[in-house]
């Protein structure tokens, strides 16, 4: 490459050689460490380290928890178990609300289908049906389905 092709504004970077050397060294190091991590010996060593940590941590866990529980009970304050129980109950309430939401969605969909079917029916047929329904209503045995209002879903939208 000629000087003109290389461009006069690109000065040589003195750190480039160092970077290349560094990257080459890291690549070799990386390959070796990946092989090490991928070996049975490493798995065995990391397992032993974890066991050692758990052996130290576990004996303190139960007494600490018991002492904390006793202290909170004496202070008449809720414990973590109380909060966990409460969280479970909240989730159950949410599940029930979601079930209700699903039912309302189904009702809403059915109402839409019924309303659209009713709207697309011939006018004459609608008139006859309405007359019939009105008669039935007068007898107190039936209600006009067309009078049903869509279920309000959002409490904030309800007019007071």
């Amino acid at each position: 490459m000629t000087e003109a092709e290389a461009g006069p504004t690109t000065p040589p970077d003195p750190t480039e050689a160092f970077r290349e050397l560094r990257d080459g060294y890291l690549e070799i190091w990386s390959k070796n460490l990946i092989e090490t991590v991928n070996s049975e010996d490493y798995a065995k060593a990391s397992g032993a380290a974890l066991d050692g940590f758990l052996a130290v941590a576990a004996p303190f866990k139960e007494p600490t928890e018991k002492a904390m529980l006793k202290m909170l009970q004496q202070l008449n304050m809720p414990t973590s178990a109380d909060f966990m129980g409460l969280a479970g109950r909240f989730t159950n309430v949410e599940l029930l609300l979601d079930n209700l939401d699903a039912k309302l969605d189904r009702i809403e969909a059915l109402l839409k289908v019924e309303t659209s079917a009713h709207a697309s029916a011939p006018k004459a047929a609608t008139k006859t049906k309405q007359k019939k329904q009105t008669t039935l209503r007068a007898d107190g045995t039936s209600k006009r389905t067309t009078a049903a209002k869509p279920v309000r879903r959002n409490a904030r939208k309800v007019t007071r």
Partner: protein
Amino acid sequence: MVQAPAAMDPLAVLDERLKTVTRVMTSKAPIAQTPKELVWTLNKAKLYRYVPAVPEKDRHRIPLLLIFALMNRPYILDLRPGHSFVEYLVGQGFDVYLLDWGVPGPEDKHLKLDDYSLEYMPRAIRKIKALSGVEEVSVLGWCIGAILTTIYAALRPDDGLRNLILLTAPLDFSQKAKLTFGRMTDEKYFDVDKVLATFGNMPPEMIDYGAKALKPVENYIGNYLKLWDNLDNAQIVENWHAMNTWVSDNIPMAGAAFRQLIVDLYRNNRLMTGELVIRGERVDLSQLQANLLTVIAEGDHITPPCQSETLLAKVGSRDKEVYRVHGGHIGIMAGNSAHKRTWPHIERWLAPRSN
């Protein structure tokens, strides 16, 4: 790269570089910026719907649900403006939803894969159908999210799931020699019950260590050298900042689900052998009928390609495809070339199947 002016004091340049390093390593980048609304919640899980950017007549009819792993935040899918998979999909006319599993607390240690795939997912999908007014849905699952979606798709084939996209899906655990995680969590060396008895949930620090240890030099040294070498390039610095924010924001994994992952999948490969039982139902992969796209990252060290390749032979889908892309576990979706390769391929596959 921007050259520093020749007359600039070297100490001032160094000071500026150190200030930038301190800023990106100690602060959180503004992430997950695509406008969205919360449409459903259950326990810690939240379902978001992204605000459409395309007029309704130009949008695809079938909504798309994104499901990420259990031990990381899902905003990797919406990293930052101009570099967000979600933003890309919304711009392409998809009605996009994201199911964020949230952060499990001690009270959630009993949550299993059963709960995620047969309680949370069906309910979220029902809500999506109600909101969109469409009886079909597409689902994209990534990493452990792909395990959950596969289980759901196989157990609920009549639930309206039309398209299934699996990204770097760890489903086949038969080739133990290629699975570093498998070796680390072998029952000879790793007592999962003892760990969970101590911690309840799987601590995020342990998960993070396990993932980073697979490529220690890249994760603990190379990553920071990359930042130092590119401090003059504002775009690389901001990308690094966003990615570092995500990488260092780990969450615990529910204890019972982690136990299933290790015992049922890593150790016994029960999903592929047809022995996995979820809420009393055996997961039969031949029941999976949805159109299927599996994206495999050829350089994936967390989920090697051998874990995703064998699925296609097991499923009952007639329309199925494998897409191999050069890159790593996260890089294929959040790397610099994701918007040129992976995203457009997913869009081209999904668009004709979403109308």
